[in-house]
């Protein structure tokens, strides 16, 4: 695909929305490429659903414009926009069979009968529901209904399909299966998918690119690995996966970071960092290594006390308290846990270390405070799920 000549599938310019005095979407610019699996990720109430509804035309923007495939659609109603939506509730027509649900758009658009049949069968094959054509939505399981909704959304071959938290109503196991299914189907049909979710795992698994939103703003647009490894802000670092955040100050030479009460710690300081300025260090729990502070001479590292541990199946999570009182999380894959580590008793002193590359220096912003600073609870990745 040649991205320089092809107009973006969706281009938002200065798009903003207020409900009364409440501005839910701050003016934002965004470009979504053709054929991309693009996720809009953010906590509930961050404006992602409103943003999506402005793209579909269900909501009229307070300002800014929407372009689809290079054409401005501000004056085009939902029914004439070349996009379809997969609703959170699926919004299947209860009085119509699976077949008629999928055929709905083609019938409305007065497609020839024979073509309707071919395309509906194709779409049902895509979602593997060919045998269920005559059923009513009420006779399907949640996962099957979702597939029908997807078939209905793609059967008209729109340029863009928007998916509004479609996996929310499914159980955990089915959700994981559907993540891969959705990705497969998106590749097969080659339609641009815009996937709206609050679930960071879903976004990471499926997306080509992710836009992280908070309080009506897009904070970062990047690939899943970039979002995870190189978060641009404290909010992104803590919202995607779990992350330890240490507040520190860039040292006089501008090469290292000093955490008050702990001392100099390894960190990859960007060349642009201003010596003496306050920064936040973001360190992923799995990139911290922990050793018992034994009789051996204390090597380079940060001293801490092991507070508690939790077994999560695929990994062990340790909570340690630094001398400053700050709590950090360390995680170790359960298969790789060393006997030495297992032998450390709760309350024992430990030594933490990490490579400079693992500690990302972020601006010590106070602007986005939606996420509490990486607390021990938010770091307990997956424990709640």
């Amino acid at each position, binding site marked *: 695909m040649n991205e320089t000549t092809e107009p973006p599938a969706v281009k938002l310019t200065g798009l903003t929305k207020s409900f009364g005095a409440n501005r839910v979407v701050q003016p934002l610019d965004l470009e979504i490429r053709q054929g991309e699996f693009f996720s809009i990720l953010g906590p509930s109430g961050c404006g992602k659903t409103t943003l999506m509804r402005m793209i579909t035309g*269900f909501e009229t923007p307070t300002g800014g414009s929407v372009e689809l495939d290079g054409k401005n659609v501000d004056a085009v109603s939902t029914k004439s926009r070349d996009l*379809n939506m997969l609703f959170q509730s699926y919004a299947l027509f209860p009085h119509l069979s699976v077949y008629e649900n999928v055929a709905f758009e083609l019938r409305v658009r007065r497609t020839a009968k024979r073509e309707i049949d071919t395309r509906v069968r194709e779409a049902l094959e895509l979602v593997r529901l060919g045998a269920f054509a005559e059923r009513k939505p009420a006779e399907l399981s949640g996962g099957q209904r979702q597939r029908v909704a997807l078939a209905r959304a793609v059967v008209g071959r729109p340029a863009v399909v928007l998916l509004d938290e479609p996996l929310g109503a499914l159980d955990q196991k089915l959700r994981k299966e559907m993540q891969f299914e959705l990705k497969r189907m998106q590749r097969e049909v080659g339609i641009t998918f815009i996937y709206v979710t609050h679930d960071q795992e879903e976004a990471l698994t499926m997306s080509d690119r992710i836009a992280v939103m908070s309080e009506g703003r897009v904070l970062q647009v990047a690939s899943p690995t970039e979002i995870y490894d190189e978060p641009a802000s404290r909010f992104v670092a803590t919202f995607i996966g779990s992350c330890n955040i240490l507040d520190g100050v860039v040292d006089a030479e501008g090469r290292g970071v000093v955490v008050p009460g702990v001392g100099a710690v390894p960190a990859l300081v960007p060349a642009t960092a201003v010596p003496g300025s306050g920064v936040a260090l973001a360190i992923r729990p799995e990139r911290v290594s922990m050793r018992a502070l034994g009789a051996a001479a204390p090597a380079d590292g940060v001293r801490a006390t092991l507070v508690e541990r939790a077994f999560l199946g695929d990994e062990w999570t340790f909570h340690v308290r630094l001398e400053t009182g700050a709590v950090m999380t360390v995680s170790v894959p359960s298969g790789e846990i060393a006997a030495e580590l297992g032998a450390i008793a709760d309350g024992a002193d430990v030594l933490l270390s990490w490579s400079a590359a693992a500690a990302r220096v972020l601006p010590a912003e106070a602007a986005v405070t939606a996420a509490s600073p990486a607390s021990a609870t938010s770091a307990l990745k997956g424990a709640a799920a």
Partner: protein
Amino acid sequence: MVDVNTPRTSRAAGYLMLLPAVAVITLLVIVPMVVIARDSFAVSDPLGGNLGGFTLDNYAKLLDPVYAKTLGYSLGMAALNAAVCTVVGYIVAYYIATRPAKTQPVLLVLVIIPFLTDFLVRTFAWITLLGSGGPFISLLRLLGVEAQSLVPSQLAVTLSLLYAFLPVAVFPIYASMRSIDPSLKEAAADLGAGWWQTHARIFVPLSASGLASSVMLTFVPTLGVFVIPVLLGGGKDPLVGNLIVTLFTEFRNEPLGAALSMVVLVLMLLSVAAAGLILRARSGSARAGRSRSPKKASAV
């Protein structure tokens, strides 16, 4: 199962509590109906006296073109009124059902309020509204249109019938429309359906049960209306209801009036049965999805 006595005593108590209702229905509905049914086969003397006995003459007399014409006209008016009420009721119900949740009850109360006033009073109100000194005619004259009083007229009858039965149409339609997932409307728009297609393909089929109830609840009582045609139609085009009143009171021919009443009753029962059959067929096919799932079909 565990305690055999309690259900038995409570069942007896249940019957006891049903007694007042059964008594009321028996005395006020069943007994008069039996009397009317009996009278419809009675012999009448030339002065209208009820002589008893058994004859089919009364029913035979109803075949007279005068009566048949009124019956046909009534059925036509009832059908027209049911259609107009259901269409207008659909529009009103859709409007109410798509308002914010907080305003819906207010609008529903507004629909009911006129219903709390006496039927006769409301009908008289229409005479004032459409009469020569009323606001409607005054407005027309103000606009330079030379208009006479609209009472009595066919239009006044139609309007007044609509007004009288609209709430009866709005409620069942609103009830079935309220259970429609609002995202279906967006889904239809998203899939390219315009206003007409959205209603024809989604909202009308999904509120079919409410529409059928509305047709039935407006058609059947319209057959029995007798005040409106007299007051607003000048009695020129009587409905069956008027005819029955006339037969009983002016002609003093009770057996003939009773026979006509029985005919209307049978027509009403037939229309209710027809509506019931249509509804059952619809909901049956809606739930069972063409014989595929017998388990769920039985859950109706």
